[in-house]
């Protein structure tokens, strides 16, 4: 079984300061991990994904995440926040070795990122 915990429901930062959105996961097999962003009344857009290659993953819009197996974490960071980053962010896990259960993705509850001017 797989699960995801996003440790903060809301994060507020000032424009130009670093962003850290925290995510911990549990997985029985070899997980793939994703971060998706959702702007108001829009669908989800993939920011980045980890699929057992490099542990530091770079995504779009200056975001990156580091897969740390020992800590079962996949935190999302950005060096300098922009107003357009204000959105809902979802950490997502899927198990590649779960034996054929294409049962979609397991979502975290989301982190609402607020950017202060």
């Amino acid at each position, binding site marked *: 079984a797989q699960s995801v915990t996003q440790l903060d429901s809301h994060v507020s930062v000032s424009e130009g300061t670093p962003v850290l959105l925290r995510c911990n996961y549990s997985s029985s097999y070899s997980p793939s991990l994703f971060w998706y962003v959702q702007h108001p009344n829009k669908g*989800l857009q993939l920011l980045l994904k980890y699929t057992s290659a490099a542990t530091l993953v770079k995504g779009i819009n200056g975001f990156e995440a580091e897969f740390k197996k020992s800590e079962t974490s996949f935190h999302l960071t950005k060096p300098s926040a922009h107003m357009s980053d204000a959105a809902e962010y979802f950490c997502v896990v899927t198990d590649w070795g779960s034996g054929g259960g294409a049962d979609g993705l397991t*979502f975290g509850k989301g982190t609402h990122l607020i950017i202060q001017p």
Partner: protein
Amino acid sequence: DAMVIQNPRYQVTQFGKPVTLSCSQTLNHNVMYWYQQKSSQAPKLLFHYYDKDFNNEADTPDNFQSRRPNTSFCFLDIRSPGLGDAAMYLCATSRGGGGAKISDEQFFGPGTRLTVL
């Protein structure tokens, strides 16, 4: 551009009146998913198709049905909408992997927001 298209973007129906939401994709992906997303919550998987193979989540109400007449199209039918079914409905696709039902990165449509009066 290859994409996932959902129509309509906004749908209003009356309590108990059947409604159909549609999704089409130009990605030629094997797997299509339907998610329900209520306000300030993560998307919840309702069901998915791997090609023509339908997979229902255990807790998806019988009120929700789906059809996939061909690779490109997938429909969500709500037979008797209740007030609790008001939500954003997201369609997504993924490639799938050979003969194994493996979830990969998912590509999301913009969603259909359903209002039930």
